[in-house]
């Protein structure tokens, strides 16, 4: 079986973000980058499937500048077999359609059976790359999976829906799957596997070889929203305050129903 995992390197979300000088995105220098959280679940699930099947190849693909190789190395250390770095210093300016197009032009003649992606990226959060990719390749697509099983040419997964509901879904191969929190717990890359990853194949392709499309969605401006005013202060007798609090929790959250 051929498995592709698409990963993105995103800033550590605990960083202090500054808006870039062109005003369209955040400033990238001085940030620490790591693998997009949802993509880590994708890698882990792909590697688990490979380990279960015994014979499968997992290719980890990432688009971005030179530093992106660090993310691919981590995927290799978790257990992917081969890395593909699509070199693009301007990847942050590409829209979901362009990113999906790049992946599709790499994947189109490679006969991948399953493509795992994160549900969304933590920095752009459009959640569109997986679905667009499946359309471009003519694959089935299931999003936000929280459990996964492969059997006889079919995948059986659970999806997480709003309001605490889950759905069981199944689809035939080839299929694109986007992974949600809760799918698995990602292993800690071990030193011996990190050392082995160093010797695994990691090829680099220039993005211009794979993309010939203009963006369809343009980011006009990135900005840091004004701070919201402090929370609500409840005043009065304690029993009244408690009642008010209960009604707020019922109305605005799912803590109480």
């Amino acid at each position: 079986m051929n498995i592709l995992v698409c990963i993105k390197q995103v800033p550590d979300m605990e960083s202090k973000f500054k808006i870039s000088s062109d005003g369209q995105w955040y400033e990238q220098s001085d940030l620490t980058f790591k693998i997009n959280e949802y993509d880590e679940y994708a890698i882990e699930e792909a590697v688990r499937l490979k380990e279960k099947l015994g014979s499968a190849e997992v290719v980890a693909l990432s688009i971005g500048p030179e530093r992106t190789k660090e993310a691919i190395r981590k995927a290799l250390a978790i257990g992917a077999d081969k890395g593909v770095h699509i070199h693009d210093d301007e990847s942050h300016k590409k829209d979901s359609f362009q990113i999906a197009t790049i992946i599709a032009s790499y994947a189109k003649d490679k006969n991948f059976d399953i493509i795992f992606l994160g549900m969304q990226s933590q920095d752009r959060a459009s959640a569109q790359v997986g679905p667009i990719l499946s359309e471009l390749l003519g694959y089935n697509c299931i999003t936000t999976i929280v459990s996964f099983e492969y059997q006889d040419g079919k995948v059986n997964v659970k999806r997480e829906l709003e309001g605490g509901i889950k759905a069981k879904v199944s689809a035939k191969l080839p299929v694109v799957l986007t992974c949600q929190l809760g799918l698995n717990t990602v292993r800690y890359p071990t030193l011996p596997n990190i050392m082995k990853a160093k010797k695994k194949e990691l090829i680099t392709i220039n993005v211009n070889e794979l993309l010939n499309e203009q963006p369809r969605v343009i980011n006009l401006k990135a900005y840091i929203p004004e701070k919201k005013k402090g929370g609500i202060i409840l005043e009065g007798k304690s029993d009244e305050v408690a009642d008010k609090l209960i009604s707020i929790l019922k109305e605005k959250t799912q803590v109480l129903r």
Partner: protein
Amino acid sequence: MFVDYYKIDDLLADEDKLLRDSLRKFLEDNIKPLIKQAWHKQEKLDFRTIAKQFGELGILGSFIEEKYNCPGATYTTYGIVCQEVERIDSALRSFVAVNTGLVMYPIWRYGSENQKMKFLPKLASGEKIGCYGLTEPDAGSDPSSMKTTAKKIKDKWVLNGSKMWITEAEIADVAIVWAKDADDGKVKGFIVEKGTPGFYQKDLEELGSMRAGGVGELAFTDCAIPLENRLPNIEGLKGPFSCLNMARYGISWGAIGASMDCFETALSYSLDRKQFGEPIASYQLVQEKLANMITEITKAQLVSLRLSQLLNENKATPAQISLAKRNNVRTARFCAHTAREILGANGISLDYSPIRHMANIESVYTYEGTDDMHTLIIGRDITGIEAFRKK
């Protein structure tokens, strides 16, 4: 957040950064939550389990080659491992540095092929735990005065004597023991296994430092071990000293880890804590303390990183290692008490790490060569005159 004022990360190999992040996450998820109680109650961490977890992560004997089931990484990697574990607690780094530098290293350097195949893979996987017996009740800084003896009687080496202040004394399955040959007076190294008749192992209680780990004594009464348990390829004090180099080097990185944790704790506390209407971080006296800490940490990082390169190229001298151990442990001692100070009364609570690091670092300041000893080693190196002993 990383304490990396000089972008030293850019000088690290990708695999070292990857290991650091992976190990840091493992330790924060699994070990950090246990430390406070272990230290407070002096109930040692479960090193049986930790050894296996560390074995799985592949961080024991990190610079030894794959043939012995070790990762075959660099000395820099070993340094990063020490840094990360001591960022949590010095007892964890003691465990790693003793097993890697003081137990696996001498077997690897001075052992027979049989000894290597027998012990290294199991020490690497954490299936077995080691300890290192050099210090004695009456022989600390001056190991040449050791009293433990080994006498060859027929097909056995028979050991008599005792060792004191031994990390992991009680739990160890394998002890590397240095003793004087009763016949020729030369110091020789032996591998003593748990359960050997006449071999006694006991941890000490009621310590004010390293309370999350084991430290104890070993005693030998007519303890007979097979001839093949002697490390064949070493004789004299350079044996124990060369092992100490490996552990001292690891300590130089470990001390950075403890310093980083103290700095991070003090910085975030000083930004949150308000007195006289403002965060205490806004006052010049506090800023000076923080600036001094980050300055010392940055220097320590550069010293250890450069030293790791020298080791990787097989060019490091013992005196260079002494400089790093001495400087970086001083840095950790300074950062621990400065952080403690910035935290005010909270600084004496075990809810925050500095007081624990502060107490632990007192051990680190003394073991593996006291600060004074390293001063004298550097002094001898630069002047050519030995000042350890009066004629």
